[in-house]
C-alpha cells in the first residue's frame, strides 16, 4: 500500500505532463484523492494493513501510530480539496494551467512521503520537497503579488529548512560514532546521547520546522503565501502542510523527552506558542484582507497547538485534537473564501457587503465556519481548547491560562467583527448578475464543518483511540 501511495502520484503526474485534456486531469485528481481517502480512513479505522512490498524501501517507510493520525488528516483534506477543484478548474473564467494538477499530486506525494518516512534525513528531504512543489501552486495566478509571495515562501522556508538540517547534523553529533538517523535508533539510544548537542540540535530543529509551521517569530512567509495562493491551495497549506511541520517538531521532541530533557523543550514550546497566539491576535484585529485574516488565524492556532505540547499531559491530547479540528475548520473557511473571492473579485473585507443576500449558502458556510474557528461550543475546537485550559489549570499555570483566554477573546472579537461586516449590510453591486456556483463549491466545506461539529458533540471511540495512541507514541 505504501508503494502505491508513493509511486501512483509520481506515475500519474508524469503521465499528465503529456495530456492536455482538462477533464482527464480532473478525473485523475479526484480518483487519486478517493483512493487516498480509502487508504487513509481504512488504515485508521478498518485495520487496513499499510506495509511496503519492496524490501529496499521497508526500513525507510512505515506507518506508525503518530503518522496514521496525520495520514487521516491529509486524506480527508485532500479529498475535500480535490472535490472542490472540480468546479474550480472547470470554471471558464480562470486560466487553465496543467501544472496545477501535476504539482498538486507532487505536493500530496511529498506530504505522504514525510508522514511515512522513518528516517529523519529522509523526512528532511520530503519536507523540502513540499516547499518546492507547493511553490509552483502558490504562484498559480502569476500576478505580481503571487510572485512576491512565492519568492518569499521558497526563500524563507528553504533557509528555515537549512537550519533544520543543521539541527539534524547536530543530532548525529549527539549520538557519536556509528549513529544513524532512523527514528528507532534515535529513540532507542536517546538516553546515552550528549545532552549539550541534543539541546542545541533541538533549538535548530524547532526554528527550522517552526518556520514551515508558521510559528512566531519565523512566520513572515505565511500570510503572504496563504493570501496569494488559489483558495484550494490555501486550504491545503493550512489544513495539511503546517501540520506536517508540526509532525517534525513532535518527532524531534520525543528524542528530548526520552533523554530526560523534555522540560527544556516544553519551555521553548510555551514561549513560541504564547508569541504566536499574541502576534496572531494582534494582526487579526488589524488586517483588512479576509484571506490574510484567515492566515493570521492559522498562526494563532499553530501557537495553541505547540502550547498544548508545552503544557504536556492532557495538553498533548488537546493539541492533537485541536490539530484535527483546526485543519477541518480552516480548510472549510479557505474554500469558502474562494467562493467569496470568485463572486466579489476582491480580498478586501470592506468591499464585501451583504454576503447573505448575494450567495445565501456561502454566507451560512462563512458564518458557521466563524463559529467553528473561534471555538464556539459545541464545535470540536471548543472541546480541544477546553481541554487545553483544563490542563493548564491542573498544572497550576493560572496566569498563562488567563493570558491565553484573553487573547482568544481578542481573536473572537477581531474575527467576528470582520466576518459580520462581510455577512450583513447592503450589497454594493446589486446590478451584478447573481453568482451561481455548482454544488462542488459547497459540499466539501459542509462535510468539513459537520466533521468539526461531530468532533465536538461526540468523539467516536476509534478516533479517540487513534489520538490516544499518537499521544502514547510521543510520551
Amino acid at each position, binding site marked *: 500500500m505504501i508503494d502505491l501511495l508513493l509511486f501512483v502520484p509520481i506515475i500519474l503526474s508524469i503521465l499528465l505532463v503529456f495530456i492536455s485534456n482538462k477533464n482527464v486531469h480532473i478525473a485523475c485528481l479526484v480518483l487519486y484523492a478517493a483512493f487516498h481517502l480509502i487508504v487513509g480512513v481504512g488504515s485508521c479505522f478498518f485495520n487496513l494493513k499499510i506495509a511496503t512490498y519492496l524490501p529496499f524501501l521497508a526500513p525507510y517507510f512505515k506507518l506508525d501510530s503518530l503518522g496514521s493520525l496525520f495520514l487521516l488528516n491529509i486524506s480527508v483534506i485532500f479529498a475535500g480539496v480535490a472535490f472542490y477543484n472540480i468546479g474550480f478548474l472547470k470554471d471558464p473564467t480562470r486560466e487553465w494551467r496543467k501544472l496545477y494538477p501535476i504539482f498538486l499530486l507532487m505536493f500530496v506525494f511529498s506530504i505522504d512521503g514525510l508522514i511515512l518516512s522513518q528516517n529523519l534525513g529522509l523526512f528532511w528531504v520530503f519536507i523540502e520537497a513540499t516547499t518546492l512543489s507547493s511553490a509552483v501552486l502558490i504562484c498559480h495566478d502569476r500576478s505580481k503579488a503571487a510572485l512576491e509571495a512565492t519568492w518569499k515562501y521558497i526563500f524563507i522556508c528553504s533557509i528555515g529548512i537549512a537550519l533544520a538540517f*543543521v539541527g539534524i*547534523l547536530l543530532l548525529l553529533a549527539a*549520538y557519536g560514532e556509528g549513529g544513524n538517523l532512523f527514528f528507532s535508533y534515535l529513540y532507542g539510544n536517546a538516553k546515552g546521547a550528549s545532552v549539550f548537542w541534543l539541546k542545541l540540535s533541538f533549538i535548530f530543529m524547532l526554528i527550522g520546522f517552526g518556520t514551515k509551521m508558521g510559528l512566531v517569530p519565523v512566520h513572515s512567509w505565511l500570510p503572504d503565501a496563504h493570501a496569494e495562493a488559489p483558495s484550494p491551495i490555501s486550504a491545503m497549506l493550512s489544513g495539511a502542510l503546517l501540520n506536517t511541520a508540526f509532525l517534525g517538531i513532535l518527532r524531534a521532541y520525543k528524542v528530548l523527552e526520552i533523554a530526560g530533557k523534555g522540560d527544556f523543550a516544553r519551555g521553548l514550546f510555551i514561549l513560541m506558542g504564547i508569541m504566536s497566539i499574541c502576534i496572531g491576535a494582534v494582526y487579526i484585529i488589524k488586517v483588512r484582507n479576509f484571506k490574510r485574516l484567515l492566515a493570521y488565524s492559522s498562526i494563532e492556532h499553530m501557537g495553541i497547538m505547540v502550547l498544548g505540547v508545552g503544557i504536556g499531559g492532557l495538553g498533548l491530547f488537546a493539541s492533537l485534537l485541536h490539530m484535527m479540528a483546526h485543519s477541518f475548520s480552516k480548510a472549510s473557511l479557505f474554500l469558502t473564501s474562494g467562493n467569496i473571492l470568485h463572486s466579489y473579485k476582491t480580498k478586501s473585507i470592506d468591499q464585501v457587503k451583504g454576503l447573505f443576500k448575494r450567495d445565501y449558502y456561502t454566507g451560512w458556510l462563512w458564518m458557521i465556519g466563524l463559529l467553528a474557528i473561534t471555538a464556539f461550543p459545541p464545535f470540536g475546537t471548543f472541546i480541544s481548547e477546553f481541554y487545553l485550559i483544563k490542563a493548564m489549570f491542573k498544572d497550576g499555570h493560572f496566569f498563562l491560562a488567563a493570558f491565553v483566554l484573553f487573547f482568544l477573546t481578542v481573536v473572537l472579537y477581531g474575527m467576528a467583527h470582520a466576518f459580520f461586516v462581510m455577512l450583513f449590510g447592503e450589497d454594493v453591486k446589486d446590478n451584478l448578475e447573481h453568482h451561481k456556483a455548482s454544488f462542488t463549491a459547497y459540499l466539501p466545506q459542509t462535510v468539513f464543518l459537520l466533521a468539526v461539529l461531530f468532533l465536538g458533540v461526540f468523539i467516536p471511540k476509534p478516533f479517540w483511540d487513534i489520538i490516544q495512541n499518537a499521544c502514547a507514541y510521543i510520551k
Partner: protein
Amino acid sequence: MSDFLIIIFVLTMLYLAVTGMLSTYVKILATQGVLLFLISISEAEKINAGIFLFIALETLFLKAMIIPWFLSKTIKKNEIAREIEPYIPHFYSLIIMSVIYSFGFFLTIIAISYKNVSPLFFGISMATILAGLFIIISRKKLITHLMGYMIIENGTFLLSLAVAKEMPLIVSLGVSLDIFIGLLLGGIFINRIRSTFDEHNIDALSNLKD
C-alpha cells in the same frame, strides 16, 4: 592539511565581504566548491568508489561548475548590473564578517570540551551559516540572496563533514537534489520577477505587508 584549507575558506568569505562585483561572487562560490572537495577528500578516513563519486559529484560538479554556471547565466540573461549594491559600506561589512568569524573561533573553543565533533569544523560552519544570513540581509539584489543561500548550504556541508560519517547515501543524494532544485526554482523565479516587475531589487518585493 584540512585546517589549512579551512583557513583559505575563511579568507574567501572575508573577500566576499569587501568585493563589489557580482562576477566575483560567482567565482568565490566556485572556489568554495573546489575547497570543499579538497577538504572532504582529506577528511575521509577510507574512500571507496561510491563515496568518492558522490563527493566529487556534489562538490566539483554541482557546487564548482553547474551552480556558478547557472548563476552567471541568470545574471547575463536578466542583464543584472555588475555591482552588488549593499545596504552598508564594504568596510562595515568586513568588520561584521570578522566579528562573525571570531565568534566562530570562539565556538570552536567551546566545542573542544564536547566530544563527537571536530571543533574547528563546527565553529567555522556555524560562522559560515551566520555569514550567509548576513549576506542575505545586507545586500539588495535577489541574486545575491540566492548566493547567500548557497553559502548557508556550504556551511551545512562543512558541518556534515564534521559530524556525519554515517549519513546514508540515499539521504545525501536527496539532500543535494533538493538544494539543487531549490536553486533552479529560485533562478526561474528571478527570471519571472525580472520580466514582471522590470526590476531585480528586493525593493520591488515589498507590496505585501500589513
